């Protein structure tokens, strides 16, 4: 069965600084990869997804993620963080391009002024 690990439970970053959130997956082949954001009082929102092709994926809100097969990783990045990016971020995988997702434990991002 597939699994997802997000090594960082909490990350604190200053507004305007860059952000990188780590995600590692375990699966025998290349799964379909997703990043979601969960803000207080709001539902999970899809930031971006990787199915195939270019390993650098652009998403909404200025986020991007890079798939590295050799490292079984799909790290999320943003060059300059805004206070509104404070939220919990989840990496997820699916093995069949559907929405039966296996989520990581999440990384909570705090943004300092």
């Amino acid at each position, binding site marked *: 069965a597939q699994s*997802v690990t997000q090594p960082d439970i909490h990350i604190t970053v200053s507004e305007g600084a860059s952000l990188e959130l780590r995600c590692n997956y375990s699966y025998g082949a290349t799964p379909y990869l997703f990043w979601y954001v969960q803000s207080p*009082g*709001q*539902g*999970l*929102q*899809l930031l971006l*997804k990787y199915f195939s092709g270019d390993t650098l994926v652009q998403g909404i809100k200025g986020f991007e993620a890079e798939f590295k097969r050799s490292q079984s990783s799909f790290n999320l990045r943003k060059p300059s963080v805004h206070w509104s990016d404070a939220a919990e971020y*989840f990496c*997820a995988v699916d093995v069949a*391009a*559907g*929405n*039966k*997702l*296996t*989520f*990581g*434990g*999440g990384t909570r991002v705090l943004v300092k002024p």
Partner: protein
Amino acid sequence: GAGVSQTPSNKVTEKGKYVELRCDPISGHTALYWYRQSLGQGPEFLIYFQGTGAADDSGLPNDRFFAVRPEGSVSTLKIQRTERGDSAVYLCASSRTEYTEAFFGQGTRLTVV
């Protein structure tokens, strides 16, 4: 509203009681998913409907949990003989097809006392 609606937003029940959680998907979405998110963890898949039928219920933890979607739209997650360990946020998501983006509701927070 155009989003996935879940009711109630909060439910407190006593151990051993029966509860029903409702999900109104986005109009026209044929696929519907239930997830459970325990405190400090990522969401876990419970069950997936395609139309009226449960296409995959492999995530239901035991036979106390049951879900229906009789007319292919609204779904109800039913939990019998609730236990304190059932306390969690129950998330519903819908998508136009099983291969397109899933949109999540804000969840129902269930507390079993």
